[in-house]
């Protein structure tokens, strides 16, 4: 079964958080939703998590109880232990025979040794891993993760990645939000979101190759609106250029997508 949204529009008062966003979440696949602050990532993920937000368009979602969701903040009780969190989830979801899976999830997140530690005493990375383990306990068909790796150090991040990939391997459709493109490149499909609109979607290679115009590298700054730094050198976008064989990075393609969007507004 494919989950997702078609022509999803969500408004908060006068603000349009999402404009006609369509997205497909396939079982066994990982989708990265990429964008900065205010892009609409959290709104899209909340909608996919089945949190009842008034919307226009169609949402196709699993039955209640078959979605795992880790919000960008909260969801963890500081004065409960790790074990108590999983116990809580098992009761809330009415799970039976869950202990072996809980043990496995804690082992894979390097939390097994801290079962009786209060969540308030965990590091940020450990809390994010606990959140992911809780979401995975009921074997969700759709796993929705909002910036679970933001501010998390590389070692914990790798642990989270292992867990996310494991969930997809089990057949879950996984959606995660990030503001980093090196992380998005780990996903099979990328959805570039900016001010509530989809700027590009597809595999990281497709998004990069669909970029209009050409990006070149130079020792000199180009036009201030269309050039940016990469280390000591500059990258510049020529809307009418033809891309040479030099590979475009996903980051370049994302910057260009934002420049195109800004150009359309003016």
């Amino acid at each position, binding site marked *: 079964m494919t989950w997702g949204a078609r022509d999803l529009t969500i408004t908060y008062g006068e603000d349009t958080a999402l404009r006609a966003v369509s997205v497909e979440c396939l079982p*066994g696949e*990982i989708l990265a939703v*990429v*964008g*900065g*602050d*205010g*892009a609409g990532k959290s709104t899209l993920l909340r909608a996919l998590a089945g949190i009842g937000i008034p919307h226009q368009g169609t949402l196709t979602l699993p039955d209640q109880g078959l979605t795992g969701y880790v919000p960008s903040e909260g969801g963890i009780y500081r004065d409960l232990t790790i074990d108590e969190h999983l116990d809580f989830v098992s009761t809330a979801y009415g799970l039976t025979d869950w202990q072996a899976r809980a043990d496995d999830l804690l082992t*894979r997140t390097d939390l097994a040794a801290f079962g009786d530690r209060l969540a308030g005493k965990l*590091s940020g*990375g450990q809390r994010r891993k606990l959140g992911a383990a809780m979401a995975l306990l009921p074997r969700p068909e759709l796993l929705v993760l909002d910036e679970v790796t*933001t*501010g*998390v*150090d*590389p*070692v*914990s*991040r*790798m*642990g989270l*990645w*292992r867990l*996310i*990939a*494991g969930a*997809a*391997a*089990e*057949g879950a459709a996984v959606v995660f939000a990030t*503001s*980093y*493109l*090196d*992380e998005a*490149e*780990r*996903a*099979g499909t990328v959805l570039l979101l*900016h001010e509530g609109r989809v700027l590009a979607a597809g*595999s*990281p290679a497709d998004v990069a190759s669909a970029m209009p115009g050409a990006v070149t590298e130079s020792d000199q700054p180009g036009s201030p609106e269309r050039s*940016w*730094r*990469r*280390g*000591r050198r500059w990258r510049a976008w020529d809307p009418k250029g033809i891309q040479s064989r030099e590979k475009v990075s996903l*980051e370049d393609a*994302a*910057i260009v997508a*934002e*420049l195109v969007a*800004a150009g359309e507004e003016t």
Partner: protein
Amino acid sequence: MSAIDVRSVTRRFGSFTAVDTVELTVEPGEVVGLVGANGAGKTTLIRMILGLLAPTTGTVAVLGSLPTRELRRRIGYVPQNLGLYRDLTTAENLEFRAAAFGGSPAASPFEDNGLIGDLPLGLQRRAAFVAATQHDPEVLVLDEPTSGVSPLARSKLWNLIREQAETGAAVLVSTHYMDEAEQADRLVLMSRGRVAGTGTMSDIIGDIGAIAVAAPRWQEAFDLLDGSGPPVTLSGRAIRVLGADLAAVELTLAQAGIAAEVRSVPATLDETMVLLDS
């Protein structure tokens, strides 16, 4: 003279050694990226460079002297939480900072008269950067300066950081992300309190490798390899196995009857950090 000169610095907290005989220099005009996992000692090192913490042994010199309170006027610092007063406007934040650090406040980088805490994160980050650089510091210390902003906003922040370096500031940037580490002239990788590598990203990765496995049905191969011991992750549809032997991975797959293409590839910076830490 190096703008930041850390010589054989060790810092202990009780019996715990947070920073262990670390050497680090940053020259004027240079952007150095400080990378490493949590607990690697990055924050402790930065606190010593800012003069907030004294080394147990060794010396920290900033602009040729001990990092005193007076010297802080010549240093710009943007902490991870930005250090802005959320219930002041951008202009008021800049005025306050100018009053503390000397000089006149810079013009606000954008038009907005609202409280800074209500602005989008990208604008808050730009304001924090202007607040930290309006006194023309000779040393600039930035902690994850572009976390949470869009790719274009990130590239604009890096334009500002580069401008500072090109006018002679020595810039030290602490980061967890490769997108950001790539922008530095040179990286210093810390692991368990020590400097584990220094140079460009490829210098640091050196010959540390990973095994990439491409299987028609990656899910099946992932399940198998994830249970086999070494850390396993995914990049697109390719499985990556860390710290394992190519022949062993091939054998594991063959014994399970899974057809796959297995090859050795260079590790990423993240993977290198995981391997150094394990």
